[in-house]
């Protein structure tokens, strides 16, 4: 059922119920008034000579009578007694007048219980009987029975018809006045329905009532949902981008690796005797693949948040050892001397273990990967916990001074780094630079004495 009809019907029913209740109460009240008036009429009649006439001729009193009510109410009131008929009885509720009705037993019971006035309404509530005990208790006119019509019962048309008319009026007024409310609710409904169609349109809020509050609540929910959707879309796009970039970046070294392996197979098929060095490029490429995946993971983590997700105390001596051990096999195959020195005491530093290891790994990997055969790479950790320096020194080709700032720039954009440095070159150093910055470390590139590159990660407590 529509709101407007429901509202009108509810108001109509409420009005009818209220009016019927009022009708019933009014009817009860009128009924009581009528009993009082009839009792008063009985006393009045007997006081004004009725007793004498009745006792003089009880067999015929009061004589032929219609409904009487002409007698005026004594005193200043202009009220008339209700029209009624009257019958006289003795103290035993017997009448001398044979035309009189039998005294109603229910009234006799009430008077016998000690009441001076007893009343009773007929079951159809259309007639009232009142019995009044006179102040004397001897004679044939000791008790008077009065009968009168009305008042109308509460369920009569006289009561119900105005109630229905008023209710009808209320329903009409409700239908008319609910119009603006219904219109606003419809507007709100339309606005909310548009949310499903992904509309950017805000929910319009008019007025300052409950409907406006509902609209405001919907608008706030819309904004929250909108923000969450935007965040989800962003994450989805980042994920898609990550998968696409990862696939692209992995395909390249994978193709190179396949090329190396095919070339090896062709050389073997051609009867060529291969030495161990022949497989080094393939091994190097496979190691690069693993490292690339770690870097892409690190890049995704760096892009996903500011700062660091973890800060645990890290044993830098062991971290350096681990990174060097990781690159020693490839260095050995490339006949590059990879050496490491850590201090006797342990240097602990709070940071993200995976990211720091990846950063140092990238620096060492670059030093090994781009070095020549018989080259050197040295990794040195020195200092104390409050001030330490980690150097990766190589005698490889180095990086031109003009390119160094770009390589270690702080802002990290994985995609940009990839496109600018084909085959992953530079991505590793970008990650290292970003990780260093997040850890409050200074990353510096310089020339190695005699040629090559020195990458330095430096920490000083007073700097942070």
């Amino acid at each position, binding site marked *: 059922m529509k709101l407007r009809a429901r509202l009108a019907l509810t108001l109509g029913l409420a009005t009818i119920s209220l009016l019927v209740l009022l009708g019933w109460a009014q009817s009860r009240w009128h009924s009581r008034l009528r009993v009082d008036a009839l009792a008063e009429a009985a006393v009045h009649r007997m006081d004004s000579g009725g007793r004498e006439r009745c006792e003089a001729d009880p067999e015929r009193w009061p004589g032929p009578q219609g409904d009487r009510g002409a007698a005026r109410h004594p005193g200043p009131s202009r009220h008339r007694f209700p029209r009624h008929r009257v019958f006289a009885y003795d103290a035993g509720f017997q009448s001398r007048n044979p035309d009189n009705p039998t005294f109603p037993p229910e009234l006799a019971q009430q008077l016998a219980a000690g009441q001076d006035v007893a009343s009773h309404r007929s079951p159809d509530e259309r007639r009232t009987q009142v019995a009044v005990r006179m102040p004397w208790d001897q004679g044939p006119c000791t008790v008077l029975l009065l009968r009168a019509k009305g008042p109308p019962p509460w369920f009569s048309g006289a009561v119900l018809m105005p109630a229905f008319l008023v209710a009808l009026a209320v329903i009409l007024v409700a239908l008319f006045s609910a119009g603006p409310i219904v219109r606003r609710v419809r507007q709100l409904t339309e606005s909310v329905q548009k949310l499903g169609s992904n509309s950017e349109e805000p929910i319009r809020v008019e007025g300052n009532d409950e409907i406006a509050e509902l609209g405001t609540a919907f608008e706030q929910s819309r904004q929250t949902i909108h923000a969450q959707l935007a965040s989800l879309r962003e994450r989805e796009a980042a994920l898609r981008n990550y998968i696409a970039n990862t696939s692209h970046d992995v395909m390249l070294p994978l193709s190179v690796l396949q090329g190396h392996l095919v070339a090896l197979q062709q050389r073997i098929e051609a009867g060529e005797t291969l030495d161990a060095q022949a497989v080094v490029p393939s091994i190097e490429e*496979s190691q690069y693949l693993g490292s690339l995946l770690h870097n892409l993971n690190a890049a995704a983590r760096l892009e996903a948040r500011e700062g660091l*997700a*973890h800060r*645990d105390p890290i044993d830098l001596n062991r971290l350096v050892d681990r990174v060097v*051990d990781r690159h*020693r096999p*490839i260095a050995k195959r490339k006949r590059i001397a990879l050496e490491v020195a850590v201090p006797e005491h342990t240097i602990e530093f709070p940071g993200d273990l995976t990211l720091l290891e990846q950063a140092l790994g990238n620096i060492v990997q670059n030093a090994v990967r781009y070095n020549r055969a018989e080259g050197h790479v040295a990794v040195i950790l020195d200092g104390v916990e409050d001030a330490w320096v980690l150097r990766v020194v190589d005698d490889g080709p180095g990086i031109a001074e003009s390119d160094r700032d770009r390589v270690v720039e702080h802002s990290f954009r994985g995609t940009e780094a990839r496109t600018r440095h084909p085959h992953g070159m530079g991505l590793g150093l970008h990650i290292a630079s970003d990780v260093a910055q997040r850890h409050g470390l200074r990353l510096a590139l310089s020339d190695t004495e005699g040629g090559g590159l020195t990458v330095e990660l430096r920490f000083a407590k007073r700097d942070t």
Partner: protein
Amino acid sequence: MSNRILLVEDDLALGQQVVDTLSQAGFDPHWVQDGDAARGLEPDDYRVIVLDLMLPGTYGMDLLKRYRVKSEVPVLILSARDDTADKIRALKLGADDYVTKPFFPEELLARIQACLRRPNLVGTERIVVGTIQVDLKRREVITTEGALSLTPVEFEILALLARRKGSAVARDALVDAALDPSHDASRRTLDVHMSRLRSKLGSDAAQLETVWGIGYRLSEGS
């Protein structure tokens, strides 16, 4: 002590490769492929435990906890997940080290050997490096040519190198440890002391290696 190494790894290809690598390196690998089988083993029966974290039937971290309650045997974690929280948790639970997949067989061996070296030389009074014996308490050095007469600086240099035998020691670390900062504590001065030390070591001087970019190392020799 035996050379038994427990390998808990569910991947057949990787597990076989590791077993081959360990065998070739002179270890006696015992390979179990699932957590349930590994749970019943006695950790003290092995010198090192190599434990994969992702195992069918159990999580490697639970095994690690179980082993750590019973034993101090070095545990090396094999981790495929590049997850800092996992590594840190494993280290906090008592793992000695971890190796992230993919890895070269040599890398795994190096980490295992690092685990085995861990009971270090702290508290040792006499260190033997090849043919060179360094008595830290008596401050004496004996080589194939007999007892050497070293200056305090030369002894400090050799003692530090002996304590870190096989490992390169940075020039700056040697300068800090052996030279008097109120005098000429520089790399150049260090090189002069090293030159003198080499000549005093005579035929054993080959054990004192110069390490490019770093400094020096005292090795066991050939």
